[in-house]
């Protein structure tokens, strides 16, 4: 899947889960930068990403998904 398609799908999910329709994804964005990004919303976000992209993350992978850029990179790899 193309990177900009991944980004636009992911933006949609982030806006919905974190309740912020103006949210713009950035490579370096982490839970520190998004108001509602905690354990609960993280799990909701991961579930939505898995559903939308038809992928499954392993626990070890979750541990590396700290920045938005990490999520995009892992998705790119899984979907290539």
């Amino acid at each position: 899947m193309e990177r900009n398609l991944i980004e636009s799908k992911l933006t949609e999910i982030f806006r919905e889960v974190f309740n912020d329709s103006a949210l713009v994804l950035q490579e370096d964005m982490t839970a520190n930068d998004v108001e509602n990004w905690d354990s609960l919303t993280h799990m909701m976000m991961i579930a939505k990403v898995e559903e939308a992209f038809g992928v499954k993350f392993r626990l070890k992978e979750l541990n590396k998904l700290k920045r938005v850029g990490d999520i995009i990179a892992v998705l790119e790899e899984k979907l290539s």
Partner: protein
Amino acid sequence: MKYNFYNDVLTPILSSIERYGERNAFCIDEQMYSYNTFGEKISGILDAIAHIEYHNQKVGLVINDDIETYASIFALWLQGKCYVPLHPNWPLDRCLDICDQVELDLILDSSKETRYEKVPVVMTSTLDVVGVPLIARGDIEEEELAYILFTSGSTGKPKGVQLMRKNVAAFMDSFWQTGIAINEEDRCLQAFDLSFDVSVQSYLVALTRGACVYTIPHGQVKYVYASGLIEDHQITFGAMAPSMLRYLQPYFSELDATSLKACILTAEACPLNLMEDWYNCATNTEIYDFYGPTEATIYCTYYKLTRGGSNKSLNGIISIGKPMANVIGLILDEEGKEVPNGEKGELCVAGDQVTCGYWKNPEKNKSSFFFKEVNGEQVRFYHTGDLCYKDEDGDIMYSGRLDHQAKIQGFRVELGEIEYHAREYLKKNAVCIAFDNESALTEIAMFIESNEFNAEELLAYMRTKMPSYMIPTRLFFVPVFPLNSNDKTDKVKLKEMIH
């Protein structure tokens, strides 16, 4: 007295610093800090506060996740002071309200830049290493405060629970009497915010025994980071909220938790089926279910589970067991009389772990505490607000809350506080209901009596007033609220709209 703060808290920690200087005291954000370093940090802060003029025994502490913040707690305690946590991620308004309420005249802050302008601040991360010896003052009364924790209050103002040195000493004595043993070889998880009292257990149990504390940095997703710590650092002991394990449950088959020897579940009702799965994952662990409100110092009852055995539960929730050694726990009816075993009533607790009361809140103090005769003596009790019964063995079964509170990710939330802020902003009626989602995690739904509108401004406003875990995750617009037979908003009908 059998126990006191000087002998049971301060002396053991000073002796850990002396005996285990080269060993690790903390692992924070993948960085190790030895007991020597920890001692030096405490010394530096002691020196800094010795040169400052302040009068309030209570000192604000910005609770970053770093060595300076932990060192500040002990510097204050050695000096007989009390810490009042101010969370860096809480809205500034909420923190300033706490500063005002307690009339703070000193704040210790390890941030790069401080958010506080009106209260004098000591920046603790830039202090020099000095040779001030670590000595605990021996002239401090046991009734002096050790910490004040502010929790959600239904009037829209956070309310402060005051814990005395005596309370903490009694807690530590109770804790060791459960038989959980920790030594300098242990690696202990500290998975709780310092604004939440299980953090006090998490650091004290480790540091009084020379063990190492592994923290979870702010901005990390807790359950994911904790799983990494458990595997990479072979954590041997830790207290966790059941919701943390609930998040991890889908990954249990991938998680190596064999290093865990003992594990405490606390802060929320603990589901039996989750624990059965957890036993299969953490194959060497003993599991304990601990219960307790902040008002009775961290925990006041506990139940030790049996692996492969039958564990007591009610509606799938594990028993909270029996009172700890320094706690009296009775099930009382509305008239304050003890009910027979098997009958439900309110769990009320007494003993040296019970708070001296809420900070400057005479009304709440009047309604929350009462005296009752026990064995010919007048004993002061706290109303926990929890509906429970005792079975024939005296084990307490937890049945739910009596009032309008919810536990969100382990944090106690007064739904009334959220409603208050929504109403203030909207000038419309709003009702909050906590519910368990598909993953059995608690979320907050807010119902607004209105036609639908864009709620972003409302949510943005609420975020300036409350921590993020208190912000509703689902919104419903209802033009007119349904009423029940008592002409009150029918919350049962509202709740049905959620699914």
